[in-house]
């Protein structure tokens, strides 16, 4: 079985692209949802891209006073690729912790530029750069507030860009948490009409933030010793990989190495899931620390401490890595909003962090659509059916791909671009 699967994957990787160009069967090659999430799409199965894309990272200067340890931060960093003629403009929102230059973002920038769009990529409201420069509260995770901050940022970027480009109309897309945020931004745009988005696409979005994050955190229950032992678990995984690397004929830690490891079934499902959760923790540690530093919240940094560049953050890093997103929610996020809105219950707050809170808008707006996967593990039981009910024909579900593993697969990219352009769903 193991050999058969390996042979099958090699066969799929080697098959020339045109062989299934107009086949109706979906051929994304990785059927395990965790493996797909980690490995993404093999280079050979991505769209062929030729010619240079004028990708530039820009800084939107903000005059916010920031703590000294963020001395390297000079403003909000966003990434653009502009056409030299009149074209539609698309804004992109990154997933949890992602910058405007994360690899998924750059893949979208490149493909959408080639499809004829002006592209403006924004960091996630949960990224340090956004928390420091563009977040009004500096406490990320509140979808409605983050959407308002995103909208304001988009307006500012549009104001500095509009002299240089000619735009026909506006589009919006986001992946993962960025997809969920795109829905809230779209709703805001319905009221303010600055952009009047023609199409909005949510790629592998969370339905309920709290439930998705709980599911990702839950992956750590499967590692030896549970969530408190992520350090030991990580060391084991590194030792395993190093050993595999030593024994094989590899030149570098690259895609080839990762595929070989996958084919050899180096990791079992609990281990693969654990690694996904650890990488999520690494992102959320940055978010927790930055928010705490910006608000003087006394959560992982001593209250009133003025951190200097020379101060060691080693202990702070270790502490932040061991705090789950749910700790952040219960001990930091919820008390913060409770102090702003006395009487706010935890249940009400959890409800507000869900697509269900804007369900009426989502069900009635013909502009907004969703692309996701049957096996996307950030969706709880029943949430896929919920999406089917609310979005109807505006929902596309692929049979596999995990969480965003198939984003760069050529069929997915072609479909995504087609959905943006087409007048019907």
């Amino acid at each position: 079985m193991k050999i058969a699967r390996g042979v099958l994957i090699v066969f799929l990787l080697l098959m020339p692209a045109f062989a299934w160009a107009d086949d109706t069967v979906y051929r994304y090659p990785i059927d395990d949802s965790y493996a797909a999430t980690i490995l993404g799409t093999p280079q050979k199965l991505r769209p062929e891209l030729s010619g240079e894309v004028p990708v530039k990272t820009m800084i939107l200067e903000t005059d916010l006073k920031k703590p000294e340890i963020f001395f390297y931060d000079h403003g909000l960093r966003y990434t653009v690729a502009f056409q030299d003629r009149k074209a539609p403009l698309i804004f992109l929102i990154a997933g949890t912790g992602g910058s405007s230059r994360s690899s998924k973002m750059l893949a979208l920038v490149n493909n959408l530029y080639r499809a004829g769009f002006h592209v403006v990529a924004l960091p996630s409201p949960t990224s340090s750069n956004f928390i420091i420069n563009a977040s009004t509260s500096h406490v990320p995770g509140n979808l409605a507030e983050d959407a308002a901050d995103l909208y304001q940022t988009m307006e500012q970027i549009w104001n500095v860009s509009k002299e240089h480009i000619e735009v026909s109309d506006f589009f919006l897309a986001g992946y993962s948490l960025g997809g969920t945020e795109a829905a809230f931004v779209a709703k805001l745009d319905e009221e303010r009409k600055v952009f009047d988005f023609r199409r909005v696409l949510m790629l592998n979005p969370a339905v309920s933030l709290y439930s998705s994050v709980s599911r990702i955190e839950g992956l750590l229950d499967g590692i030896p010793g549970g969530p408190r032992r992520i350090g030991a678990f990580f060391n084991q995984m590194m030792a395993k990989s190093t050993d595999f690397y030593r024994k094989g004929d590899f030149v570098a830690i690259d895609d080839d190495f990762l595929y070989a490891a996958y084919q050899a079934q180096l990791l079992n499902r609990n281990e693969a899931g654990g690694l996904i959760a650890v990488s999520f923790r690494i992102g959320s540690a940055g978010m927790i620390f930055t928010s705490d530093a910006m608000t003087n919240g006394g959560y992982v940094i001593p209250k009133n401490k003025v951190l200097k560049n020379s101060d060691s953050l080693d202990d702070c890093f270790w502490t932040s890595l061991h705090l789950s997103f749910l700790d952040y929610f219960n001990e930091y996020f919820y008390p913060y909003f409770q102090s702003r809105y006395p009487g706010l219950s935890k249940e009400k707050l959890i409800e507000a962090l869900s697509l269900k809170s804007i369900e009426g808008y989502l069900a009635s707006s013909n502009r907004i659509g969703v692309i996701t996967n049957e096996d996307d593990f950030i969706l709880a039981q029943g949430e896929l059916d919920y999406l089917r009910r609310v979005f109807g024909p505006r929902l596309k579900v692929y049979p596999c791909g995990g969480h965003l593993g198939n984003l760069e697969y050529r069929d997915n990219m072609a479909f995504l671009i087609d959905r943006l352009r087409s007048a019907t769903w």
Partner: protein
Amino acid sequence: MFRYIIHLFISLGLALYLTGCAASNAHIASEIPPMHTVSEFSDDESVSHTEDPWEGFNKGMYKFNYEADRFFFLPVVNAYETATPHFVQTGVSNFFANIREVRTLYNGILQAKGKKSLVTIGRFLTNSTIGIGGLFDLATSFGWRQQYEDFDHTMETWGVGTGPYLVLPLLGPNTVRSAGGFAVDGGVRWAIMNGIDPFGGTGARTEIETGITALETVDLRHRESFRYYESDYPFEYYMVRYIFSEHRELTSIK
């Protein structure tokens, strides 16, 4: 080589100055311990095994490198990339890589790595002759992949410990041992250059050698895509430190 030592001293002074400033600021409000501290999580295994007793200094140096990049190296590298066509940049990179084959060769021999040394001799001879003084890397297309060895690896095979983590000015993440290795490799190169004295008859030896060193420095930065603080991650210093030591371990496996 001498140039690097001067740089080292200037930057050491600068870094001490920078860290000195940081310590002198007075706190206004009194500090209150945070809700969570590291002591709660001491039952987990630590991930990084890198000794970093000079962290304050290292972080100052890390910052210095960021500023040096920002105000000097990256503008120079950008100008270089704009002014020269791609094939010239590749030629320059190949040329210096070819010179560095000598380092890989003698370190390979010192570690008794026969296959690596032979491949390196083959590469060096091929690229120096039909590759026109190293401008073209034909050896790779013949299937001889570039090898890497340095005196740091040699010391490792001799059983010398890495010593603490050390961020060097301009060169970035190192250990005390790799810094020593770098100095030895630089010294060997200087001795070889002195022995051959290729520019001795030109009457402008110092100028030519300075120009070559400058070009090599620009080429090194041009080929290195890492940018300090580009990750926007507040714990970047620790991630880089970890990745550096893991990478070092993996390259010394083969």
